[in-house]
């Protein structure tokens, strides 16, 4: 029997917490560094929410008694997090898969979870940068006053969006061909954000859009962030949390099913 043919020294000894922790830190650090240097990613992921905020939020910060700069600070923070996650995981993994790089990593002892977690944390870092820039703009030129408590809540809620939309990115990476991934992700990301009231206040949208918005995960995410500044639609915040958790489970579950199916076929 092949099993008896070689006495393997127990290599499990080195695989302790310290090993996993260091591995995860390095994976995250280099993922972030790689993304930051990848201008196509870093410039668009940070640039678009900031640019839209300047155009829609700062340019008409107060009109018809509505504080746009305040509302849109919350919604573009969400918009930034969603973009970072969808492109970071969706397009990122799709490319690494197509180029054989993911396979090389899979052949190494790198745990799959470290790979996914590193990508998610890296997206959160981008979201933090986006929130920081938006808050700075809001306070300096947007005429927005916010308490420290509101700031902390905004950061916390924004980062909470990492998991649902990273899960969605993962699923997209599994179904989209790499060459089409960025385009298709934009086709999902931009309309979905618009319909959820991320680009402009949801009250300004046509009624039928307002009616379908609650079907979108981005809507529930935005409602949580808008709640910090008192712009949420009437209703329980618990419903929004439930919606996001349910959405995450569906995305991860489907991704898992697809992944195991692909492995079985491979």
């Amino acid at each position, binding site marked *: 029997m*092949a*099993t*008896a*043919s*070689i*006495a*393997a020294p*127990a*290599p*499990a*000894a*080195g*695989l302790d917490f310290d*090993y996993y922790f*260091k*591995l995860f830190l*390095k*994976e995250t650090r*280099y993922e972030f*560094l*790689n993304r930051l*240097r*990848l201008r196509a990613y870093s410039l668009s992921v940070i640039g678009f929410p900031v640019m839209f905020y300047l155009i829609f939020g700062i340019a008409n910060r107060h009109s018809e008694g509505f504080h746009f700069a305040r509302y849109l600070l919350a919604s573009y923070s969400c918009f930034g997090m969603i973009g970072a996650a969808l492109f970071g995981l969706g397009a990122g993994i799709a*490319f*690494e898969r*197509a*180029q*054989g*790089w993911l*396979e*090389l990593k*899979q*052949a*190494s*002892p*790198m*745990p799959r979870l470290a790979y996914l977690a590193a990508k998610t944390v890296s997206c959160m870092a981008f979201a933090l940068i986006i929130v920081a820039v938006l808050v700075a703009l809001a306070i300096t030129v947007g005429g927005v006053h916010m308490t420290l408590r509101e700031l902390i809540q905004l950061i916390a809620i924004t980062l909470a969006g990492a998991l649902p939309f990273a899960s969605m990115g993962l699923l997209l990476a599994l179904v989209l061909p790499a060459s089409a991934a960025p385009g298709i992700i934009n086709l999902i990301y931009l309309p979905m954000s618009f319909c959820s009231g991320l680009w402009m206040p949801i009250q300004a949208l046509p009624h039928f859009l307002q009616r379908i918005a609650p079907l979108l995960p981005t809507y529930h995410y935005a409602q949580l962030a808008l709640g910090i500044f008192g712009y949420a639609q009437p209703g329980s915040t618990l419903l929004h949390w439930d919606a996001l958790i349910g959405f995450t489970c569906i995305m991860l579950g489907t991704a898992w099913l697809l992944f195991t199916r692909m*492995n*079985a076929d*491979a």
Partner: protein
Amino acid sequence: MLATLDEPTPVYSILRSPAVARLHSVTKRYGAITALDTLNLAINAGEVLALLGPNGAGKTTAIRLLLGLISPTAGSVRVMGRDPRDSATRTRIGAMLQVTRVPETLRVREHIDLFRSYYPHPMSVAEIVRLARLEGLEDRFFGKLSGGQKQRVLFGLAICGNPDLVFLDEPTVGLDIESRRALWAQVRELAARGKAVLLTTHYLEEADALAHRVIVIDKGKILAEGTPAQIKTRVTGRRIRCVTDCDHSWLRALPGVADVQPDRDAVVITATAPEAVLREMFLHDATVSDLEVSTAALEDAFLALTQAQA
């Protein structure tokens, strides 16, 4: 394992040493296509084994099975006596695969630092840089490297974990002659350190230059197996070109004839012993003309071997 031997390890002792990885009557199908057909293959500790075959022969499939990236349709795969998917197994192997692009905005030093962190007992950075010949390239971005330099980085990543077994999937494909020779020297250095190496290639010359043992596969089956010298006696023949009335199937049936191909009005016969073939032909056909006998190119002979079984 073999590190106690002071002398260069002779082939016979390598053949007796235990297998570090094994495919046991493995069949792999993709839909209607059979990539590997009840294939048996063992890599022994400290040996360089070359898997030689044309494109689509099943070489990469064999490597992907041994890396646990895919699972066999039938049969079993064992690496270090375990399932190749175990992370404990993976800490002891390294792989250089056919990667079209690596994250290009990381520096060579950063790629090595990251891959080293995957292994509990990695090789030192200085050692990796030396073995993979990356001196002076450490601070370069991957995207700024030449093709040969990129292959050297991938080679470096394969040895980050100080593995006992290294898989090299077509390591020199697309490289110029100089880079190819340099990579050969690196593989030899790995072998000299007692690492087992499984190398796939479609260059007979490469297998000959590097391997202790060669397995020729085509269409998922083993055609020939042995030392490079043994394979060469099987595949290197000489080439007879002449105009003759002899029937091709009759020629093919002559002893030592590996291949018979029409070439305009002449025929090209590849044979191990052309003298014997010619003697028979002269007896059979008095009109043989335009006779040339030449040494078959290695690649031609290899082609003959794979085609003869088709």
